[in-house]
């Protein structure tokens, strides 16, 4: 457990936990950004440079901004009055706890089988590109299709209904 890892893990957990628990939605998004940037740093630490930068580009540059936009456009906040569904919140938290317990147990009991840290593996962008174009060309194409569909779909969904039907 290096200090870097601990530090980054702490910021990640803090950020995400804040994102899930703060009242102010914009604060949530900003906290989420913090968490995701730290996560990207964790990727970098693991040697996955490309994924790390992609993470920043996509999550900070796009998803967070989108969420902020959505917040702004819906002008929403958590309703001031909690409408008596505290049991619901409790049960949700409970379930999450159970999930963590199960996963943690699984990790704890399953460790040792794999944990072999080799030398810093090479993951240069070149090879990623080559792999994308050869072994993974079909998923790549499908992702391209998916993104196009999402682009068009999101556009149509967000379009004003009066204009859409025109």
């Amino acid at each position, binding site marked *: 457990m290096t200090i870097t890892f601990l530090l980054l893990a702490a910021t990640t957990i803090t950020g995400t936990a804040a994102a899930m628990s703060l009242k102010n939605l914009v604060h949530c998004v900003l906290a989420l950004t913090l968490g995701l940037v730290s996560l990207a740093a964790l990727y970098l630490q693991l040697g996955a440079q490309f994924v790390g930068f992609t993470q920043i580009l996509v999550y900070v540059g796009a998803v967070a901004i989108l969420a902020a936009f959505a917040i702004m456009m819906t002008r929403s906040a958590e309703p001031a009055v909690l409408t008596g569904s505290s049991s*619901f919140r409790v*049960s*949700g938290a409970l*379930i*999450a706890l*159970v*999930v963590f317990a*199960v*996963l943690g*147990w*699984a990790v704890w*009991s399953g460790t040792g089988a794999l944990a072999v840290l080799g030398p810093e593996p090479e993951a240069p962008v070149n090879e990623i590109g080559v792999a994308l174009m050869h072994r993974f060309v079909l998923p790549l194409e499908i992702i391209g299709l998916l993104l196009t569909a999402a682009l068009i779909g999101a556009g149509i969904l967000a379009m004003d209904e009066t204009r859409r039907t025109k």
Partner: protein
Amino acid sequence: MNWIVRNLWLVPVLPLLAAGISALAKRKSRAMAASLAIGSMAISFLLSVWAFAHVLLLRSNGQATQQVFNFRWFQFGNEWLSLGWILNPLTAVMLVMVTFVGMLIFIYSVGYMEHDDNFTRFFCFLALFASAMLGVVIANNLLLLFMCWEIVGLTSYLLIGFWYEKPSAAAASKKAFITTRIGDLPFFLGIVWLYAQSGTLLFYNNGAGCLESTSINHLLTQPTPLGFCSATGIALLVFCGAIGKSGQFPLHVWLPDAMEGPTPVSALIHAATMVAAGVFLVARVYPLMSAHSGIATELTTSTALQAVTWIGAITALFGAVIAVAQFDIKRILAYSTVSQLGYMMMGLGVGGVAVGMFHLITHAFFKSLLFLGAGSVIHGCSGEQDIRRMGGLRKLMPFTFATYTVGMLALCGFPFFFSGFWSKDEILHAAHSWNISQAPYYMGAFAALLTAFYMSRQMFYIFGGKSRLTESSEGHSHSPVSPDHSSHHGSNSPHESPKVMTVPLMLLAPVALLLGFFGTPAWPWFQSFLDATQLAVDFGALSEGSMLPVMLSSSVIVLLGLGIGWWIYGRRPIKSAEAPDNLGKLSPPLFTFLGHAFYVDALYGATVINLNTQLSKISDWLDRWIWNGAVKTVTNIVLGLAHLDNFLDTHVVNSGFDEGCQSVSRSGQILSLLQAGRIQGYLKIVAGAGIAFTLLLLWKAKI
């Protein structure tokens, strides 16, 4: 090789150039078109004379008189198709004849067509014709010959239909083209067959040509399924082409109709040259025609030549009989041409190349003379062509009368001085000594009698008596040929033609008169020239064998024919254009029958043409109803199946399906109670399931 042999192609190409240039010229450049055509023809004539002289020189030097020049045209497979031209006596004679007659007729046309709107076009077509005809003459390749042959047919079509506004002319041109094409198709097959068998279409190619002995012998050994050797088959097929082109029975029907064209055209194409091309063709491929199996003696005539003889004899007689009962000046000459072409064929069949060709040459001159004379008469009579409406022209058109008489006597074969006598006599003599049958001789002799008769009839109608032109009835229509003739001359009275028309007549007349002396039995220069044999002056030949009796009897026959003509038509001048024909009075039904040319046209109309029309209707009907109907039926069947399927779907399959649907929706109603409508509730269930599965997996792994 001599310059003239190498450049013989210039002879046909010069008129072709003239034709090309005047085709592109404006309609107004009349002088240019005419001078181009005449000029090119004159140069061609000079070249032809040179070629002729060259052959003469070779002959006097005792060298081979046959020279060829071949070149490659195109390649298919591993072999080249070669074309070429040939210079031999036959070619040389024909070249001189065609260019000379052609040139004179071109000159004549300048006068005759003077007032026509399409003057330029006319000379373009004429020059094209001359080019193609000369191409036929010099071709050393059956394919080249055929190609030029077809172009000759095209120009004939164009020139017959020159006055295209006249429906009869348009129809006649179409008829001419199609009828000759009927003959050309077997010819085409013959070419193809010959090529398949001998591997070449060159006539002479240093022993490798298809008319040379190697090839002929090969052809003689090739049997056909029909029993005769392929040489005979090919020869007969090729002869079919000659039948069509030379107006032989039964494909002669187009030739009289072709008189719808301008008279110079009739003179040049349908009397002197093109129609003779069939005869020339037979002469050209004579080695093939006369080929017969080696075992027979020399006297044995081949099957093909027998066919040629019989067809020729029938045509000669047939044409002569019909000519008797015609009233149109040009139609009489046309049937006369048919008859004379039959003579030539017969001559080829019974006597060989020289006999037929001699008559061809002499006929070319005197018949073009006659046609040009007729043209002059028509011109003078402002477009009138009916001999009953002429008369008395002897005084009015002296030059025309004189030259026409020369031509007429030459055609009749008036003894001793006229070229027709010698050439016709030779044919009759050869027919008399034919070893197969005497029938052709008698048919020919009778035809000669009739020839003399109808020509004298024509002469008396046209030149005898008084002019009947003025009494033309109001209903009589001027032919649209040259509607401006009358207006131009200001009067309707007959008159002599201009110099440009009479001079060619006067040039042709002496030739028609004297040419015969080149081929008398006593001095058979022409024959020896063509057959490349030694020439000897032998007056004894006149009295040899049956020569003298035949000569005398034919003289008698001619005189008899002229006498009968005078008896019936010349004794009393014909008074009125409306009066019935003197001969017709003897037997009106027969005369009408002859006047309609044995109703051959009507017969063809009722049979061949009708069959054709019916077949086309049937094809169209088949197309519309049977083939298309089959498709429609299939479509309908498929549509019916689709309907059936649809029925089954809606009523059989779907009813079961509806049941299933209902049960599904019932169970759906029950299950829908689980849906609280809260997304997170669903998510919780998913999470719970996830936990359960993970636990299950772990537990399994532990065990």
